[in-house]
């Protein structure tokens, strides 16, 4: 295609239009629109009510078809549920305005087969966080207690929660008020006496 030609769609044939390329197909948002094998799909438009019910991105709704129509209510009907309409209200996605960021942190315990995640925003005090972590890792500590001879010597489980701040220093948890410290956490560890049971907390 020469720039001066001004033809329309990329795969123009001699007639001016590639009908296969412009054929209406069904697909979910984000799916490839052009079927390379040119398989014809049903070219129906969605009904407005189906738009409303559609869980966008959810494959199980791909069977909803129907003639597209807008029913502009004569009288006040219950308004369309906002959350289910793509791109509405028309606010830009980034960055989120006025909403709190989720501070999910990974917590890893050495020797544990898998990690957990906690949302620091869920807690208002250190105590709440530590209690929650204890609950989460109670099974591991029990297992370690049974397996690890060192732990047997310990009278109860003694944890000293520590974290690595953004200067790279290891700090004792609790000196800085909870809310201001949230932004300086980099790594969260819990030391068991000298043996460190690390709970890593990379920034998300």
């Amino acid at each position, binding site marked *: *295609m020469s*720039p*001066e*030609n*001004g*033809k*329309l*769609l*990329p795969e123009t044939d001699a007639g*001016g*239009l590639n009908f296969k390329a*412009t*054929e*209406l*197909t*069904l*697909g*979910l*948002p*984000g*799916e490839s*629109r*052009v079927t390379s094998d040119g398989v014809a799909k049903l*070219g129906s*438009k*969605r009904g*407005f009510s189906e*738009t409303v019910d559609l869980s966008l991105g959810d494959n199980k709704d791909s069977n909803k078809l129907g003639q*597209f*129509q*807008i029913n*502009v*209510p004569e*009288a*006040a009907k219950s*308004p*369309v*549920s*906002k*959350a289910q*309409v*793509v*791109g*509405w*209200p*028309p*606010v*830009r*996605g*980034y*960055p989120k*305005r*006025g*909403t709190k960021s989720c501070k999910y942190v990974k917590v890893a315990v050495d020797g544990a087969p898998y990690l957990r995640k906690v949302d620091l925003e869920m807690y208002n005090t250190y105590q709440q966080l530590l209690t929650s972590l204890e609950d989460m890792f109670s099974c591991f500590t029990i297992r370690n207690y049974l397996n690890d001879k060192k732990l047997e010597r310990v009278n109860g489980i003694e944890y000293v929660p520590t974290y690595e701040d*953004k200067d790279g220093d290891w700090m004792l948890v609790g000196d800085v*008020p909870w*809310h*201001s410290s949230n*932004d300086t956490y980099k790594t969260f560890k819990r030391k068991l006496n000298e043996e460190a049971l690390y709970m890593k907390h990379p*920034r998300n």
Partner: protein
Amino acid sequence: MESSELKRSKDSVNSCESARRSSFPDEVLERVLSLLKSHRDRSSVSLVCKDWYNAERWSRTHVFIGNCYSVSPEIVARRFPRIRSVTLKGKPRFSDFNLVPENWGADIHAWLVVFAAKYPFLEELRLKRMAISDESLEFLAVSFPNFKALSLLSCDGFSTNGLAAIATHCKNLTELDIQENGIDDIGGSWLSCFPESFTTLEVLNFANLTSDINFDMLEKLVGRCKSMRVLKLNRSVSLEQLQRLLVNAPQLAELGTGLFSQELTIREYEELESALSNCKNMHTLSGLWDATGMYLPALYLACTHLTFLNLSYAALQSVELAKLLAHCPQLKRLWVLDSVEDKGLEAVGLNCPLLEELRVFPADPFDNEIVHGVTEAGFVAVSFGCPRLHYVLYFCRQMTNAAVATIVQNCPDFTHFRLCIMNPGQPDYLTNEPMDEAFGAVVKTCTKLQRLSVSGLLTDLTFEYIGRYAKNLETLSVAFAGRSDWGMQCVLGGCPKLRKLEIRDCPFGNAALLSGLEKYESMRSLWMSACNVTMNGCRLLAREMPRLNVEARGGMPHHLSLLSEMLGTRQTENY
């Protein structure tokens, strides 16, 4: 006899013309035209005659391309040999709301390749809704030794690595303005790539990046860039750090703070307050993440000459806003979240008589449970107190026809009226009638109206009004509105200055689409999605108007994107 008379008169005309030409050399004309900045004026000038066309093209240093598919970079370079500054816009606006599929296009790279060959002395590049990769940013950074200013708004496809390339290579950089973009924020180390010898930065905006940056490097950078006038920090910068920066940069005219919430001692608070108030040139303030009533008073002394206050990241309550605004008598532009509610907007009306622009964003746009926010009462209150108001973007959950009529009576000078009633198709909540009369009042009263966004329950009558009265309207956004083709036909048949029309989820079909054939030649773009237009309608349109770039996609949601008169073709990837 007659022919010799004709010949004589022709000769005299010719000699008049040549006499005129010799007394007005091209250099003079070029010099005069070089003073013209507005691209519209320049377009007009270029249409006068061939001499003026040539003089204009040789004197133009900045080119504005509102639709990157309307022309090819080769043609631009051929016509304008001396460009130093380029502004390019790409994707349709609805891409901001995820209505445009990924990989749609608007890739900058082909442009950069041509510019590198034809405009090696390029200094400025401002992009909006373009796709730009890290490779392109690196290419840009090394290809233009005089490069000075990069501004990216609503672009995507790049990461902070691309920014690192810019910081590393652009020795003459004065402006790095990274506004809301789909950027892959890998980390903050890009900021540390500015060399220690680098001192020319005047504008630095990284407010919408999330990663931590190295504060020491930032402090040194700000310290040595003595001409810095715009500094917009990201959330990772604390209040204490802000104070340290401001002490070394009291000349700042525009400041975007970082997080505005931290436990400060009294002394630290006073130092902050002092540093802020020492910024005597400050006219624009933004950032203020998580600002609360506790620390806002630190700003009071700094707000005396403030003309633009952007609180859209600070979910203030009405009382906090009222107290702050009492110190902002010069305010012309205000952006807030609807957490301030109607009471907050009453305070706006009381404290800001010079206000020209108000934007009220929803704090929780996707939460159906919310019953707060602003109503028609807040908007009305502002209109009573701010007669100079001409730009409004207002997200609300209820509105009445009467309120809008009052508003435009108080403020007849609206140029931009963007009202978003957040429940689609919602009527006047008091009368249960459509909102037709509201927008009728707007277009009848506001004769200078250039941009209009409509919402709520609307019949075709709204569009009759728009077509008939909105003589200066250039941009119209429509969603979940109208009854039949007639609505869209009214708009296309009226609105002589219409340039951009974007429509989603409306019952406008092929008849409406095809009624605008003449109109499309003078428009920049048309977008229609989830309407009643069919593929056949698009084919017909494309056939009738071969110079238009018509793009129609099936699928869900199917849409028609009609870009204006094309001299080039749209090179798309298969998607």
